[in-house]
């Protein structure tokens, strides 16, 4: 059973900026990754919507299991060193075999994402220190 901790009651417009961000894809800013707005709040997978040249950028937020960031870090930590509050790992590993294993194991985490429930906009390209949010029609029960 996947636990989407607190997503149903979470109001992003009452949150400040991001508490921590793990950027898994970037191009002149964050494209995809994991984000948490408060220390004990829900974790979301963010995915950029639209064009990389649009400012501010928009991202859809999909609820993730509460421990998704910790699990992702646990998997890659033997090879990559986390840096908070914003971590943008450069995806380099000692061997192709290790890289393949890291890809598969982290994909299994990202595959747990539920349907998008929020869309956020920000001109802070990596840190999400400020953003505006709107609820999408689909809501987690």
């Amino acid at each position, binding site marked *: 059973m996947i636990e989407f901790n607190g997503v149903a009651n979470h109001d992003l417009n009452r949150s400040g900026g991001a508490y921590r961000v793990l950027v898994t894809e970037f191009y002149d800013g964050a494209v995809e990754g994991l984000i948490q707005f408060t220390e004990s709040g829900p974790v979301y997978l963010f995915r950029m919507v639209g064009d990389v040249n649009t400012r501010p950028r928009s991202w859809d937020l999909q609820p993730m299991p509460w421990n998704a960031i910790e699990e992702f870090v646990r998997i890659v930590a033997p090879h990559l060193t986390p840096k908070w509050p914003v971590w943008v790992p450069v995806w380099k590993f000692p061997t192709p075999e290790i890289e393949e294993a890291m890809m598969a194991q982290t994909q299994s985490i990202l595959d747990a994402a539920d349907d998008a429930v929020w869309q956020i906009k920000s001109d802070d*390209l990596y840190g999400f220190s400020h953003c505006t949010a709107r609820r999408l029609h689909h809501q987690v029960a």
Partner: protein
Amino acid sequence: MAGEIFRRFGTEPESLEKLAAAAAAAEQALGIHAVSVTARETSAPVSVALREEVERHFRVIETPTRKDKLHWTIELPMPVTQEVVDQFNQLFGRAGP
């Protein structure tokens, strides 16, 4: 790799404000005052430059992402000046008329 092609998304000339903001954001997050390119093929509108041409003017750093193994960053001088922007746009064939 000889003849490697860098692709930068978009085709319009880029402004000083946009390049400076992107480079500053990368400096804070990645520790490199730089902007992105990719060497992978894409059907999206891009402007292109030969890697060796870019390297004559800027330092380039291999920065693969989880899905884009051919992602690179081009380090820009700090501060980004109009001269730098003009050089960058010219390299990618985005110079104005």
